[in-house]
């Protein structure tokens, strides 16, 4: 396969308070890494959104992606009742090149459900804003299942799918909810993870991600590049699916 256009849905920036072997910080460093791996565009979040403060972390993301053509930001969300998300949330997303949301219910100590998010999440669903839920960063399977029961049309990207194959958790969701997608960085770690998923659901439901800088980007890229899939399927996973989702966001 000659040309593959990579859009990476799972890049984390910033230094962890607990220290890290691998961190990328400034825009230059991130763009340099994307060049090295041949990644055209990346959806980024900041570790401070999780470890320090959702709003301050959101500010760091905003500064990072503002006016960047190759970076798009994810914001972290808190329960609307405490007012910490600020006013005109969706307008500010648009102004600041933010196109997706992340939720960290364990770390931020709230329940991710209709009782807490009510109409806010109805808006997120109606605006087709991708909601990134990471198993690694504390979103549990019962929470994901219950949330989708309450918001079945939610555009949802399940990220960092365990280091051991999780098809028994993920496949029922992909088969029940039409706008659930699987991020590939750890799906690719599982032998045959991409191949089996595509065989079951088609290539439209998997979205490429690397988990960089925490994980080796070449690993996820090479698993996709050499998977026994057609070029068309690879291109959908590599970038077309994410491109389509981001283009569909109404802010």
């Amino acid at each position, binding site marked *: 396969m000659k040309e593959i256009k990579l859009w990476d849905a799972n890049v984390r920036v910033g230094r962890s308070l607990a220290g890290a072997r691998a961190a990328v910080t400034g825009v230059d460093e991130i763009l340099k890494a994307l060049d090295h791996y041949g990644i055209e565009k990346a959806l980024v979040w900041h570790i401070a959104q999780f470890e320090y403060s959702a709003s301050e972390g959101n500010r760091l993301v905003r500064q990072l992606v503002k006016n960047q053509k190759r970076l798009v930001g994810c914001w972290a969300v808190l329960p609307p009742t405490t007012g910490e998300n600020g006013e005109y949330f969706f307008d500010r997303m648009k102004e600041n090149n933010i196109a997706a949301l992340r939720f960290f219910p364990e770390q931020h100590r709230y329940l991710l459900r209709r009782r807490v998010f009510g109409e806010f999440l109805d808006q997120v669903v109606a605006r087709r804003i991708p909601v990134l839920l990471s198993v690694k960063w504390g979103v549990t399977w019962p929470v994901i299942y219950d949330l989708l029961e309450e918001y079945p049309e939610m555009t949802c990207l399940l990220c960092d799918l365990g280091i051991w194959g999780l*098809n028994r958790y993920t496949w029922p969701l992909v088969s029940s909810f039409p706008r659930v997608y699987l991020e590939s960085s750890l799906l690719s770690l599982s*032998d045959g993870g991409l191949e089996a998923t595509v065989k079951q659901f088609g290539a439209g439901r998997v979205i490429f991600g690397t988990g960089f800088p925490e994980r080796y980007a070449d690993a996820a890229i090479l698993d996709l590049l050499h998977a026994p899939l057609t070029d068309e399927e690879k291109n959908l996973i590599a970038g077309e699916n994410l491109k389509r989702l981001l283009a569909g966001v109404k802010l």
Partner: protein
Amino acid sequence: MKRKSLLREEFYKQGYLSDTPVYDLHGHMGPVAGIHLPFCEPEAMVQRMKTSGVRKLVFSHHAALMAPDIGNRASQESVERYPDFLRAYLAFNPHYPGVFHRETDGWETGKKFFVGLKLLSDYHRVCLSDERYRLAWEFADSLRLPVLLHTWGGSGYDGPEQVRLVAGRYQQCQILLGHSCHGDWQEAMALVKDFPHVYLELCAVLDERGILEEMVRRVGSERIIFGTDFPWFSYPYYIGAVLDADIEDQDRVRILSGNALRLIPSLKD
């Protein structure tokens, strides 16, 4: 930012390395309770090895580890079918030493199939240094066999303290630290520094960027063995991680290929 790697370029182009046959010293086979493994039968596994340029896999069938009623026969049957691609570890469950006697009594025939031992203490819930393992350790030591251990940081069964005890006691065998005492990387590296017959092994290590670089710096690439838990983990992913690491190509060749052959020369057959 990164040094150039010809091996990386080659793998990007074709999905295998022409002059560096890969030897994987940590594999399994067959279904397993906690995971849907879509391609876990020997036919599919061998096909996938070929595609990624993996010359041989040394494995222990999940049945040999998890189902004493089936045992090592499952491993042996697959090696018989695919002798060009597979060798097995004889799994030893300390709760059933009788099974082991039966298998090791036939070692002269067994050694065509089995190249070492596999101990899974965390799962069998017996400490590596426990008296019940003595039989296995003495057997491996007397034949100078490689012993692949499941090792995990913080485990009282097969964490670094337990490894240190048995590494001191049994010095003729070669001890492969499966998963490199996962999480307790510093202790695993200290063990390799302290004992010339102890090696790091990369299964479940490569999903975190930067540890391999640290290992190469501290203990040298000669002491690092490539392993994947295949068919759990993907070859393009795992080989890709080694190719992405900020180390030299000569380190990669040792890790993917040379070290395994030095440990088990018969894998070349």
